[in-house]
């Protein structure tokens, strides 16, 4: 009897703890949504902490109509989709090679990728700009997507490698005996098994590309190519002299929805992925 009471008591404490932390996580979203439903002058006076006097969707409408959010939204979807697709393919190929294949310089190349995660290169904008201009990729979608792929390469390759390391070799050997070349092994055996690692890579990179704006401002010189975050900032600062915070909030709310969807879809894979010992060092 006492045991059961003790157990329920502990369970209660645990739940209270979980709920309070959860509330603190949901709070920013509520604040953001609350702000997006009020007028800017109201926000400026109460810093977003009281309920709006009149609920209005004016900010959302303004965001789409005046802020051309539709165009920026599409751009971001394009960049995120192709960027993530590119990263998944390229880094899983590379991860497979570094994990399983043998060639001179293999470990050196892998070490290079790892080192890149640690060494920031602050003045990289200048050489990047010059290089991109040199190959004619400046102010192009392709140039930006490639730059975004590069940003996620190191971590993604690392993740894939550690995951591939865990997969037993028998499956591979069986396929090789059946006469499969390296590429077929990758496509039919390794990559499917790595689905969970792919889940992590997709979420991580989708988040990065979706929220990115600095490289976009650097590489693009035409508004029509800019991603969503830039469009939001533009629009929020367009009111003469005063930042339209509430419109920004509306835009940010809209902007966070796709990412949450991606996360919801992918998170099942992540759990499975790490479950199968994916990220084990």
């Amino acid at each position, binding site marked *: 009897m006492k045991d059961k009471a003790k157990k329920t008591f502990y369970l209660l404490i645990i739940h209270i703890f979980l709920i309070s932390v959860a509330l603190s996580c949901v709070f920013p979203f509520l604040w953001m949504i609350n702000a997006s439903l009020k007028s800017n*002058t109201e926000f*400026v*006076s109460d810093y977003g902490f009281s309920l709006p006097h009149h609920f209005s969707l004016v900010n959302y409408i303004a965001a789409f109509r005046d802020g051309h959010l539709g165009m920026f939204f599409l751009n971001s979807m394009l960049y995120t989709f*192709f960027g993530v697709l590119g990263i998944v393919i390229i880094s899983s190929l590379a991860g497979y090679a570094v994990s399983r294949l043998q060639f001179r310089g293999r470990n050196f190349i892998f070490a290079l990728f790892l080192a890149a995660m640690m060494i920031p290169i602050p003045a990289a*904008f*200048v050489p*990047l*700009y*010059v290089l991109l*201009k040199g190959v*004619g*990729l*400046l*102010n*192009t*979608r*392709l*140039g930006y*997507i490639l730059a975004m792929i590069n940003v996620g390469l190191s971590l993604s390759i690392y993740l894939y490698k550690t995951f591939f390391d865990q997969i037993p070799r028998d499956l591979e050997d069986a396929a090789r005996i059946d006469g499969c070349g390296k590429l*077929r092994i990758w*496509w039919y055996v390794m990559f499917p098994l790595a689905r969970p690692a792919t889940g992590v890579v997709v979420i991580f990179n989708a988040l990065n590309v979706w929220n990115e704006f*600095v490289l976009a*401002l*650097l590489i693009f*010189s*035409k*508004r029509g*190519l800019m991603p969503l975050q830039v469009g939001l*900032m*533009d629009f929020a*600062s*367009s*009111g*003469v*002299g*005063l*930042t339209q915070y509430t419109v920004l909030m509306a835009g940010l709310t809209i902007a966070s929805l796709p990412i949450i969807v991606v996360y919801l879809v992918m998170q099942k894979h992540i759990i499975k992925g790490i479950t199968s010992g994916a990220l084990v060092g």
Partner: protein
Amino acid sequence: MKRFLFAGVCLLISLTGCSFHKAAEDKAEIVVWHWMSDRQSAFQELAKKYEAETGIRVRFEVFPHGVYSQKINAAAAAKDLPELFGILGDKKLFSSFIKAGLVDDLTFYMNENNHRWKNSFIDISLAFNTFDKGNSYGVPPGIYAVPIDTMGIQFLYNKSLLAKIGVSPDSPPSNWEDFIKDAKLAVDKLGVSGFVCGWGENWLIYCLATDYAFNIMGQDKFFATLRGEVPYTDHDWIKVFSLFEEMRDSGILAPGIITMNNKEAEQIFASGRSLFSFNGSWGVNTYKQMNPSLRYSVMPPPQAGRDYPVKIWAGAGSSFVVSRLSSRHYEAIRFLKWLTEKDQQVFLVEKTRNLPSVKGCDSKVSVSMKQFLKNSKYFTHPNLWPLNEDSRVVEAINIGIEKIIIGEKTPQETAVDVDKVKQLRMERK
């Protein structure tokens, strides 16, 4: 498998295709890069008007403050600058661009037709962009940029609050002692702050400090310090730093002032929570939007020293330069001339509530804005000085004054710190 690869390659090619198509479009237009997000829509309207009048397309692209300088640097290195752009930085940076051969000398066009273009500008705005003979930057004398607005940074006071503490709203304090006294009264009697400013943006600290440096030691000694002839540990400089100590000790500073950005400071002043403030003419717009019923006015900076006048930073707000690398160079200048004609300037004044850079628009400028051009005989600006202080020393001054305000250092200690940095930088030369 093969089909997948094939589809992928097709997709990539189509993407590249998009970019080539875009490249073809760029042939016949003038591109302008700047950072003024709030003026972008006004600029775009003007561009449309220009295209209707002359058939030449003008495209304004705005890049936020933080990324703008990086982008310009990178574009300069790649020789990819647009026809017109603004330079975000001090005169030293400006001179670097000129010396690197990136910027056009506009003197000839200014002096054409009996100095017609040149004379249309408000003097101080144009002086900003002019390099005189024998200037310390090593730049051949000339006019290298066109100002498109004017600004001034002045002391402001809230008329209603001043009246409430028993001072006539038309006679704000004219000396430092009265200023501190009135501010303290506001704190004690009304529960508001005495003074607010966006000191999280460090340069405003330097602005205020130099205003009073001129006041206390006069401009000769000030420039002598910049040349390294007078140390920052001089008693006059300590007097300057002590002004900040006095503000701290009298409790008049708004809480959180040193991490406050300018917008937050404007917010506090606009909502009547501070008696005095120190801000630029761009604030007029913000105050109007935040609180149209605010009754405020500009006042000359309260004098702290008796021997010399106190100075006020004023000059061109933003200016455009013409890139020497562009082939559409003549069209770009034509556009600039058009942009700085009265009609267009008046349009900008009304839309963006900034002061115009050309003369003769006075009737369209609101009363509150005109105030920022008061006291013009005291105008100065680092861009007009014979030389500028090294940026590391300016950083040291700003951080040093912040440390005084949070009580970590005394004015004497800060003076010693700043002087150390100055010695180091002078040695390097």
